[in-house]
């Protein structure tokens, strides 16, 4: 699973890649939290949070997922570094996500932060395939 940031006017684009959509979601989550801790490996898995979500489409599910992580982290003062995602549904049903996120209290001394992610947006939103790999991306308001 890989991740990167991409350019956007005033904010930051986040993009995850993977061999499945779920892995690409995990990559996108990692890209979001690389704003708070540049090296996700520096985040200790001290706290684990479960996430259950539902949305009308796969793209909406990505926005809901990243927003859930961002607001959980903000409310509890956490930074996440490790993510598990499972995605079900589609077709005539809604899309569902079950996941876990592991992290620890944010420490400004140890986590090299650039800017605080505030919310995922529908801008440059895409969940799809590029050749043989999956891509999940959107712009994050900072």
């Amino acid at each position, binding site marked *: 699973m890989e991740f990167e940031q*991409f350019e956007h006017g*005033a904010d930051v684009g986040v993009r995850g890649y993977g061999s499945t959509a779920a892995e690409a979601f995990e990559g996108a989550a990692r890209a979001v939290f690389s704003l708070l801790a540049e090296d996700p490996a520096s985040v200790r898995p001290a706290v684990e949070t479960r996430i259950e979500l539902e949305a009308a489409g796969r793209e909406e599910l990505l926005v809901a997922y990243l927003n859930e992580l961002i607001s959980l982290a903000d409310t509890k003062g956490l930074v996440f570094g490790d993510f598990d995602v499972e995605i079900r549904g589609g077709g005539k049903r809604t899309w569902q996500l079950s996941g876990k996120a592991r992290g620890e*209290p944010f420490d*400004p001394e140890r986590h090299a932060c650039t*800017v605080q992610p505030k919310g995922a947006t529908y801008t440059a939103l895409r969940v799809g395939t590029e050749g043989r790999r999956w891509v999940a991306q959107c712009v994050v308001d900072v």
Partner: protein
Amino acid sequence: METAFREVEPNVWELPAEGPMRVAGRIYASRELVDALDEKVREQLANVAALPGIVGAAYAMPDAHWGYGFPIGGVAAFDPDAGGIVSAGGVGFDISCGVRAYTTGLHATEIAGKVEAIAHDLYRTVPAGVGWGGAVRLTLDELDQVLLGGARWAVESGWGDISELARVEENGCMKGADPSRVSRRARERQLNEVGTLGSGNHYLELQVVDEVFDAAAARAFGLASGELVVAIHCGSRGLGHQIGTDYLQRLLPLAGKYGIHLPDRELACVPIRSPEGQDYLGAMRAGINCALANRQVIGGLVRRVFARHFPAATLTLLYDVSHNTCKAEEHEVEGRKRVLYVHRKGATRAFGPGHAELPEEFRDVGQPVLIGGTMGTASFVLVGTAESERRAFSSSCHGAGRRMSRTAAKGLWQGRALIRELAEKGIVIKSHTAKGAAEEAPGAYKDVEEVAAVAEAAGLSRRVARVRPIACIKG
């Protein structure tokens, strides 16, 4: 460069109403600013111009750039009697983000040699950046009082004097706020964040008045050449963002129900006169009060710092403006007074002389319009004009406006080197993150001199004074 905009007057460009557009698009800018404009701004203005109930035109200020749904630096007014809408994207995520400025009566020569110490004290006293709890910790019930009372709540809690409220928009308290329309998650995000600066482009600056353009207005505002001003730029923090996110998600599926075509999901909107529209307005107004309280508390913290270094100095609130709002205001349209819901996203209200909303001492002059520039160049104080009413429902620009992405800025500047370079120019930077400082490099923004000059040339507001930063605290 070819542009779809047509110059109809100097510094006034129009995008004719075509296709689904109900009104024209209009941007106030010089040719240089228009040429440098992101293509997305044109597209977004055309989208806004197509929304139900829009009055006048879809406007863009000289500092316009690509936003979510609406352009940043965008102004659009909607008539509730004509099916007008309210849009979460038209307000923006950081509800009521704004600028507050204090005059100090201190001359630059009096603080020379003390700037580093004051900046350091401000950096330690005013929580900024990520992971710093606020000076105020609240329960959910107490937070609801903040959302109802705004800056008035802060003053009643000991953060400032009651006389200051007249110098805050809405007299410090936005009416019609409904905390019950704000999700628990949004409220929880704010419990430790009242009185925090945040990160990104938010700042706390010490500035020196460097040039006075309008002596009479400067006198009325208490601005004198060579004197120190303190400016605070921040908004409604996690709460505002969560309200924006919650309502974008809630309003999006309703477009079909109300027969609204949405070319872009972030335009999500509903009629003002709908239950969901009223819910959003109640929540958004609570967000405005959150931001007003936040800046009032930060002002109180700044006062504590000044009391330690200059016990005799008096910090006088110049004014507090919000630049991400939707407000019901009376405006004259085709000779008739109408109540319109004016969305200003990255745009500042700029009432001209005589407006009843202004405190008595500013009524002959007009409303102070506080424009945040960059940490290396300058900021401006402007004043609302009578002409601004017919230009863009009494609105002006809000800042320099970005011209370069954060990623590109990080590629061009290195945080620590930039901080050193600014120090050589006599500007002390205290930042919780060096990389964050690089993203805020002065070169990543448009030329604030030109933005302010064009705002004046186009009749949106008039320059009163330029202030230059001598210290900047960043999150």
